[in-house]
């Protein structure tokens, strides 16, 4: 009897009636204070640690310092992978998202520009102000990956204060500065966070709780879509075409899978911390779809060119595509509907 009573209490706690007590205002507050602000700070911490790692590499080139710089690059990338879907506020301004990571780059513009700049030893690329005046494609993580892992990176093992390293160090400074700007913008008591948490008809960006919540849920729905369309589909084999592993982001550094995992994990965490899946059945469905995505990713090992050539791993990548399709529907459509958000046909993603 006692056990079943406990069970009933537990079930009552899990019921929608309980879940509904999370108000939209609380969802927004929790999204900002429990996810967005801590995660952008975590990214800034990694970016600030990357800069001294690059400085050490330039001053004392060698296998150890290169390994440390590469590890700092990986940590910074993954930390960015956790926030890059936050395309509102500072990441949607001043081309920050593109400057941090220029992707997709279907025609390899970024790579060509980076190679040219390295070939020319362009002095404008090794001062922060100079770099910030250049193409967005040579300013961020994609460029730094080529510096640290691409053709010619062996120069970092034995050239003290070489151009390539100093360029990488300047990129790291740029990343740290942009990261700091993002942290400050989200911390601003009169900024985007305030507008998002306490919307007001007088604000140009968020005029009502519904608009704010639409924005946050939309970040996840569009984030899932972007993962599939810009990170997965371009390199996996589909519709009978052959795989194209060189179109995988960060294939050189073997960070492709880690980035995908960071992207998806972060979106799952935001939904959980925001308490937005108020319908327990739907919450279970969303969790199950995320679990399928992570199970698929766990079956994919680096490097990507080996993974796509292995039928088992290629199948796992296709499973991941299916999971993202499910997630997009569950979050962009079902979850939006349960929250009473406008999932209007015309306004869903514009045209």
């Amino acid at each position, binding site marked *: 009897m006692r056990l079943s009573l406990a069970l009933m209490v537990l079930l009552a706690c899990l019921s929608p009636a309980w879940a509904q007590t999370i108000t939209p205002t609380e969802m927004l507050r929790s999204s900002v204070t429990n996810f967005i602000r801590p995660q952008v700070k975590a990214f800034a911490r990694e970016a600030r640690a990357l800069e001294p790692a690059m400085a050490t590499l330039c001053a004392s080139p060698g296998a150890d310092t290169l390994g440390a710089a590469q590890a700092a690059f990986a940590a910074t990338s993954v930390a960015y992978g956790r926030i890059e879907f936050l395309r*509102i*506020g500072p990441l*949607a*301004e*001043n*081309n920050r998202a*593109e400057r941090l990571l220029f992707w*997709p780059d*279907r*025609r390899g513009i970024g790579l060509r520009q980076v190679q040219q700049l390295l070939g020319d030893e362009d002095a404008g690329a090794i001062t922060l102000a100079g770099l910030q005046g250049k193409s*967005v494609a040579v300013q961020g993580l994609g460029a730094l990956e080529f510096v640290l892992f691409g053709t010619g990176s062996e120069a970092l093992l034995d050239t003290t204060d070489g151009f390539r390293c100093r360029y990488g160090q300047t990129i790291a400074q740029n990343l740290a500065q942009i990261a700091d700007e993002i942290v400050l913008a989200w911390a601003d008591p009169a900024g*985007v966070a305030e507008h998002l948490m306490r919307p007001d008809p007088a604000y*140009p*960006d968020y*005029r009502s709780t519904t608009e704010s919540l639409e924005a946050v849920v939309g970040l996840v729905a569009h984030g899932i*879509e*972007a993962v*599939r*369309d*810009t990170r997965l*589909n*371009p390199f996996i084999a589909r519709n009978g075409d052959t795989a194209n592993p060189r179109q995988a982001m960060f294939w050189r550094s073997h960070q492709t899978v880690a980035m995908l995992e960071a992207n998806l994990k972060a979106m799952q965490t935001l939904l959980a911390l925001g308490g937005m899946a108020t319908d327990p059945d739907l919450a279970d469905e969303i969790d199950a779809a995320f679990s399928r995505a992570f199970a698929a990713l766990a079956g994919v090992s680096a490097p990507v060119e080996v993974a796509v050539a292995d039928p088992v791993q290629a199948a796992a990548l296709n499973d991941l595509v299916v999971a993202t399709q499910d997630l997009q*529907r569950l979050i*962009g*459509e*079902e979850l*939006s*509907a349960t929250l009473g958000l*406008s*999932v*209007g*046909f*015309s*306004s*869903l*993603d*514009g*045209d």
Partner: protein
Amino acid sequence: MWQRRAFLKSAGAGFVASLLPRQTMALEGSELVFASAVQTASGSYGAVLMGERGNVIAMIDLPDRGHDITLSRQAGRGVVFARQPGTFAVVFDPQGREAPKTLTSIEGRHFFGHGVFSPDGTLLYATESDFEAAKGVVGIYDAGNDYQRIGEFPTYGIGPHEMLLMPDGRTLVIANGGIETHPDYGRAELNLDTMDPSIVFIDRVDGRLIGQLRLEAGLHQLSIRHMAIDQASRVWFGCQYKGAPGDSVQLVGFATQDGAIKLLELPPDTLGDLQNYVGSVAASADGATIAVSSPQGDLLVAIDAAAQRPVLVATLRNGCGLAPYGTGFVASSGEGELIGLAGAQRAQQQFPFLFDNHLLRV
């Protein structure tokens, strides 16, 4: 599926049963007044043909989501184009005498959702993407020969969207939205940092570029998408801003064939309510009034074209489609509503399907 939930929520389950059979019925040509791409209650896509009172005359099945529709009395045909980056266009007989015919874009091209017929109805022009080269083109189709694609010419920009025929019957005006997409990347926008939107006037006979107009350089992220022509042959356009969401940028303006381009100064409140997004632009029957819509901001704005100032704002949740009606307009919404606007005496109507972004007045 959300489609179903949203639909049941917005339309009420009672409407489901009233949906007409899909098979086209014999049509009275004179009765056909409105056409729009829609999403049906079951989540499938189609195009609806409606009469004066909003009565559904026929529903045409589409393989995927449609966008705009163009119609030629001379050709006796209408065409509904796939929403970008779709690869189909469905040619239909508004009289219902022939089954619809599906065109497929050629390899290396996709449609952008808009097109026009030549005045004599012999040629169909469609805005298309040469996506490997990241260039816009106009595909030319021979209506007299089973809509064979007989050629193309460039739009001198990326991401051409709406295209209209100028009153001279010879000049095409095209809004190059400036945004690069590629089917391998879904609807992802690939060049937001280097966008270069423009309006071009092109001679449809030889594809010659007559003129190309750009907004000032600081507005390179202002994607020019939709247009309508007023009584003075000015081309009114509506934009979608791709820069920082907090920015407040003017979104509506007009261009002329002799090279003027100007953004209207909408008041801050109206501009804010447009949410950096104009979804469609229409001219009233007399060309004296222009209407623009924002489904993001649930706002409709009517503008006195001669005075160049807004004369009326109305709200319509998810409102986007606009068509001339009476002295004003009819607006359609992504929640399945039709309402009258700016002098159009019409009761609000609710339909058992969701209207896509554009409403055609036949």
